[in-house]
């Protein structure tokens, strides 16, 4: 296959390569052969400090990975040898560098493949940016053709995107690397895990991964605390590795309810008794604590104990301990003094989820309202109690799972799902 060396001339949109005019631009590149080629000598000078001074007097180093103007992968080892791997050549050139003064270096590319495929070349480069990540200079192929070469240091890049509560994607650059994902406990007990999505290989780029919910360790399914985890994605290439992290909370769930009149029998003769704090409540009571009507004593005791309830005719009632009275209310207020909503209100630790925050919880729901709380030792840390309404039946068969969650707005202890 004949390879054309571009002269870098463009005539009315066409390129002139090796004396021929092409409608499409042709590649300007060192080491590329027009016809034939020669194996030039390798300039592997003596080992000296592989550092150069850029124009800003910053100390620049040549070793590392670079990309040439034409997309060749350039690898420079600490001893200033290396390879120049261009797609227009069937195999890489050998590379040797000689430092020139404080800001420049000479590159000798040696072609060892079949004559005519590519050729050897010499490039005189100088650092052109203060960050030492760009070098530029003239090249001269051994057949006398020449042009300008630019090298850009290959910088590893990794970006993370959260698709949804349980899925995120890592994208790495330059391409050709592989991904790993790991988790590290930051707080709490039971934390989320991470694994690559089904069918995704380590080298797939972008690399999709799923968060996994921890199992409830309690053998009887009693509520268990969750925790905060740092998820780290690492992208590894020939240039090295780079990682990025984000934090994910998981909350241990439970379900709670308030008193339901129908659950305590029918007054006056069919009331179900209950013993609370050493006192047995049975039979019926009329106008208890200022609440008009006749009720089972046990139901009223439950309202006083649990603070609120729902009557047989769907009236919401709330007990005021300071006044010793039970009131009919339009809405039952949670600890944050806003109405509680069955299936939406959650009780939480305000140190983890402050006021005016909505919570998304995997397998439970999104936009849950954190407007209730619990005792100082009950709902603490990464625990959430979901209010489901009145009567024990609403929580029947509720699984006390531990689930990945996100807060909106997020904070350091309960981050949001945006990365």
């Amino acid at each position: 296959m004949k390879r054309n060396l571009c002269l870098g001339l463009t005539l009315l949109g066409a390129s002139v390569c090796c004396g021929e005019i092409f409608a499409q631009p042709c590649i300007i590149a060192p080491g590329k052969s027009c016809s034939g080629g020669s194996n030039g000598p390798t300039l592997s000078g003596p080992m000296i400090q592989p550092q150069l001074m850029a124009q800003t007097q910053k100390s620049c180093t040549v070793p590392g990975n670079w990309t040439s103007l034409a997309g060749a992968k350039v690898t420079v080892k600490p001893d200033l040898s290396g390879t120049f791997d261009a797609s227009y050549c069937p195999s890489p050139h050998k590379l040797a560098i000689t430092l020139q003064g404080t800001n420049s270096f000479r590159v000798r590319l040696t072609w060892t493949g079949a004559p005519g495929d590519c050729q050897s070349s010499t490039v005189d480069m100088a650092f052109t940016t203060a960050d030492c990540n760009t070098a530029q200079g003239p090249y001269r192929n051994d057949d006398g053709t020449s042009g300008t070469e630019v090298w850009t240091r290959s910088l590893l890049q990794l970006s993370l995107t959260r698709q949804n509560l349980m899925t995120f994607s890592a994208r790495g650059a330059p391409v050709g690397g592989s991904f790993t994902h790991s988790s590290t406990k930051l707080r709490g007990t039971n934390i989320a895990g991470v694994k690559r999505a089904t069918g995704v290989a380590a080298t797939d780029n972008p690399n999709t991964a799923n968060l996994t919910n921890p199992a409830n360790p309690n053998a009887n399914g009693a509520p268990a605390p969750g925790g905060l985890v740092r998820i780290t994605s690492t992208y590894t290439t020939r240039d090295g590795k780079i990682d990025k992290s984000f934090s994910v909370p998981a909350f241990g769930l439970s379900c709670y309810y308030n008193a339901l009149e129908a659950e305590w029998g029918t007054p006056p003769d069919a009331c179900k008794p209950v013993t609370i704090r050493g006192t047995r409540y049975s039979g019926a009571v009329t106008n208890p604590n200022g609440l008009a009507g006749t009720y089972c004593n046990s139901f009223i005791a439950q309202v006083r104990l649990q603070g609120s309830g729902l009557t047989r005719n769907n009236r919401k009632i709330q007990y005021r301990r300071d006044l010793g009275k039970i009131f009919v209310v339009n809405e039952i207020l949670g600890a944050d003094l806003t109405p509680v909503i069955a299936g939406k209100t959650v009780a939480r630790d305000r140190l983890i989820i402050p006021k005016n925050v909505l919570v998304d919880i995997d397998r439970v729901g999104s936009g849950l309202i954190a407007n209730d709380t619990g005792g100082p030792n009950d709902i603490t840390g990464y625990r959430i109690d979901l209010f489901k309404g009145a009567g024990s039946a609403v929580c029947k068969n509720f699984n006390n799972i531990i689930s990945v969650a996100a807060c909106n707005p997020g904070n350091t202890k309960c981050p949001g799902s945006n990365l």
Partner: protein
Amino acid sequence: MRVILPVSIGAALLVAAMLPLKVIAESELVKILYVKDNELFIGSDSGGQARQITSDGVVKFLPAWSKDGSRIAFIERVDGGRALGNLVVINEEGQLLSSVLFRRAEDWAGGMRFIESLEWLDRDRIALSGSANPSLTETAIVDLSTRTEEGGIFDDGPGANFSPDGKHFAYTSGSPHFTPESSRRPTLNVDHVSVFPKEGVHVRLMSDRYWSPDSSRLAVIFEDFSTRRQSLVVWGSGGRTAATALPTPAGSESDLSWSDGDVLITFDHEALRVVKGSRNVERLAASKAALSPLDLARAERGRLLEIAKGYGGRDLDFWCQACALNALPRKVSTNGN
């Protein structure tokens, strides 16, 4: 009192096959009890090979040594939701001593949702606790000898505290759920009797409740809701309650303990000693109060938890004849505390 029905014949099959792999030597002071693959094992702090004491495959949790270390109580899971659990007591050889079905499904309403802790009170009584809602916890006392249950001991907090001799219990009432702070009236109760504050006075509970080692006194810090002044309140078994004003407000990080009849309140940088029988409050360097019996017990428990990792089990409990651990209640819970 509620009479507990005898457990089904199936539970009697719990009489487990002994699998004696090693006999715990007298010199091994700390016995380690744990669950692995649904069976109970006994190891030791020497890290030697553990001995399996059950082998029936039934899911077990919350195993706890009795106070004298001769018996083990635990809960068996009851399938089908018929009850919150089956309270079982065995000896060290795995022989069944007692089994009672606890809290049948029809008795659930308004009470504990799960069994979340188990505590030995004395030779024949065991307390089982679980939360009813985010701020309310019910405790029930099961009497193994009479097969009866006293339930309905509700605490507006993590559950009733029992005195070391198991004869008294304390809890807080007056803070029903869905009640704003201004409407609450927290009240300390001992043995179902309100002891602090007087009716109508609004206080806030600022510490856990701590029993003295001889079970004769109970200490807790309260804050006056209006003045924000804090007091150490000590209840005595004679029924008298005394409040001592504190010069330094206690915070969430403060810790109470008993020392020779005095109460130590430890803060970050200092400690207060409330002298027994007087209203005197002495300031101490925090380092002087650092080695309370509770601190030592927690440190010892931490050491044992590390050792027990080698066994790979869950639901750990430790027992020793005479060591720092004895300052802690014989209580196990599902949250690992």
